[in-house]
């Protein structure tokens, strides 16, 4: 019997159309726009000026505060301007515009294809390298990795968990990476283990990727302390708390972090980025992005330089189909629809999905019939129908008591609702309002 988390969860159609597509390299575009905020935390401070020549891998915006991240140039060329761009939400954000000239990398990066197995750096140096290389969580949340690797005093970590679940339908970037860069990922895991000073790591992979499980299990025999675990397919298993529960049966209490139960979770994509940063000295300016959709001519997985417009990615996949109704940045469950395809690929872009018209429109909203399907689907034991009503009516204090801030916005409730009620829309509103209220209260 395969393991999974016990509470809630749903089984959306998988639609992993690109699972067999080898990761290609997207050509470098003529211009890139690199936002200075591609992570959770304070935006980085721009340190280049208009007219400067930058090389690939050079820092163009430096870390500001502890919870922040360095931003590196993904191309070589001249800084055209530093201006605002429209980001995924449509609102403005600062970005560095670079006109590409050739592809000259900074000298310190080891560009050979040789795999470096020996880990020379000490724990502190690894964390420092992650900070310098701008490594953030590549699962989608883009939380700076050096923060997660720095264990606060008094806390004890005994296990590293590696997230290879990729529970979002459609997305295959982690799956392909595990198949094609398996050894590098495992070295990355070993590096993370050394940084955290733990001697065991568990890699959780859902059972819909048997090839990746076999491949990594074979490779893992050469690594001490790393074990590969197949998990039963269920969304949202890729969420930290659910993965910890599924793998080691520890429950992270409401309002706490995985740290509090002695575990740290990192994504396989992050492990690969850590390998490149520590062993090859290559900062994070490139990632795997899945471009997919049922009507696309050539869906696929690509290594994409950050700052590349999404338009280029769609062109590489055979152009935008005529029946496109919605373009989603991220997975279909948690991703956000975008209203502009000139926005750049950033560190957190795991996939771009083009939905045809008939699949993109939301149905008519009907009254709640109290069927409690949303409660059964919630992996965090919340009552989504109640949280929605409370947010709708502006009863935010009550919503706070009902643990609205625990919600991870996985969308299982909205997915399962037979009346097509916009549960998550209102819960998001309530959650952001409650967080704002709590912040104001703490300031007093």
């Amino acid at each position, binding site marked *: 019997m395969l393991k999974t988390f016990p509470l809630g969860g749903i089984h959306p159609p998988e639609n992993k159309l690109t699972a067999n597509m080898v990761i290609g390299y997207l050509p470098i575009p003529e211009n890139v726009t690199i936002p200075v905020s591609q992570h959770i935390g304070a935006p980085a401070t721009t340190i280049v000026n208009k007219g400067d020549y930058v090389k690939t891998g050079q820092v163009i915006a430096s870390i500001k505060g502890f919870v922040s991240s360095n931003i590196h140039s993904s191309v070589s060329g001249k800084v055209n301007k530093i201006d605002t761009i429209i980001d995924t939400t*449509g609102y403005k954000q600062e970005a560095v515009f670079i006109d590409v000239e050739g592809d000259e990398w900074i000298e310190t990066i080891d560009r050979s294809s040789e795999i470096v197995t020996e880990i020379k750096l000490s724990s502190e140096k690894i964390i420092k390298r992650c900070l310098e290389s701008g490594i953030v969580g590549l699962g989608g949340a883009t939380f700076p990795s050096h923060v997660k690797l720095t264990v606060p005093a008094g806390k004890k970590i005994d296990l590293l968990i590696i997230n290879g679940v990729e529970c979002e339908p459609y997305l295959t970037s982690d799956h392909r990476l595990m198949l094609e860069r398996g050894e590098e990922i495992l070295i990355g895991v070993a590096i993370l283990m050394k940084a955290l000073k733990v001697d065991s790591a568990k890699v959780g992979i859902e059972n819909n990727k048997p090839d990746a499980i076999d491949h990594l299990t074979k490779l893992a025999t050469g690594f001490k302390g790393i074990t590969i675990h197949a998990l039963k397919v269920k969304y949202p298993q890729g969420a930290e708390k659910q993965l910890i529960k599924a793998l080691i049966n520890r429950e992270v209490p409401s309002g706490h972090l995985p740290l509090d139960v002695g575990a740290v979770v990192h994504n396989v994509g992050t492990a690969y980025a850590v390998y490149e940063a520590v062993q090859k000295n290559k900062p994070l300016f490139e990632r795997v992005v899945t471009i997919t959709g049922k009507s696309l001519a050539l869906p696929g997985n690509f290594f994409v330089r950050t700052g590349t417009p999404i338009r280029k990615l769609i062109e590489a996949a055979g152009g935008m189909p005529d029946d496109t109704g919605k373009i989603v940045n991220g997975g279909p469950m948690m991703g*956000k629809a975008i209203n502009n395809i000139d926005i750049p690929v950033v560190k957190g872009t795991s996939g771009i999905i083009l939905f045809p018209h008939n699949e993109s429109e*939301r149905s008519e909203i009907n009254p709640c019939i109290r069927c409690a399907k949303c409660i059964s689907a919630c992996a965090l034991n919340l009552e989504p129908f109640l949280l929605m009503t409370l947010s709708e009516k502006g009863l935010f204090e009550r919503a706070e008591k009902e643990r609205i801030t625990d919600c991870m916005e996985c969308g299982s409730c909205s997915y399962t609702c037979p009346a097509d009620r916009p549960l998550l*829309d*209102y819960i998001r509103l309530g959650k952001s309002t409650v967080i704002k209220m709590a912040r104001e209260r703490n300031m007093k």
Partner: protein
Amino acid sequence: MSPTILITIISLSLLALISAVILYFVAQKFKVHEDPRIDEIQAVLPAANCGGCGFAGCRNFAEALVNADTFEGLNCPVGGAEVMDMAAKILGKEAPVVDPLVAVLLCNGTPEYRPRTSKYDGASDCRISHNLYIGETDCSYGCLGNDDCVRACSFDAMYMDTATELPVIIDDKCVACGACMKACPRNLIELRKKAKKDRKIYVACSNCDKGGPARKACKLACIACNKCFKVCEFGAIVIENNLAYIDAKKCTFCRKCVTECPTNSIIELNFPPRKPKVEVQTETVNG
């Protein structure tokens, strides 16, 4: 009469008498003294409990009026001068003259002038779409059109115009309670001084972007060209954050700025038609 009935009547009467005496003394002992004028004033107030005065309801406001030394800063926008004078009479005070206000929408981005670039099909709530993204147009300041303000209005003074996709404020019904102002996540509603015959001149735009991007998003956007500022002889216009603002207290309704505005973002309402010698370039859109 049987003795049972007699005993019952006597004992119950006695019980009632004793209870009445106890209740009387208890009521005397725990009497809550309340100013009778609070009741009187509450009777005068409109009983809308809209919160436009800044208090939780009409009773709270009546209490505040009785306890206040002067009426400074206290005003019932719903009742207006008439009600405030009546309240002042009861308390033997003077009610200061407060200009009546009316709500106006600082956006005129109809689909014709502000093209829709995406379609929003989430929950119909401005707060949600504002948190989520820029909205259906490219203007990050303009009206989202999901009728939060209309739902907030308890005086039926607003409705959504399906053609312009903007809310419309009915001047006669608007009491300037400010509920719509609080409901709007983009602060697009302003309470302006009410003028004679409901005449209005104001900049129906809130876009703080520079001219280029603002105009790209909406043809009626204020581009802060300074033309209105220069033409105004009364110093009623200030330009701040790439946006012009007309001070209703200084404005004399000369309408010079309206003709001067190259983007028609300044609108005039409820004026008689202009004389034909001045060439009117475009119709103003009622909003």
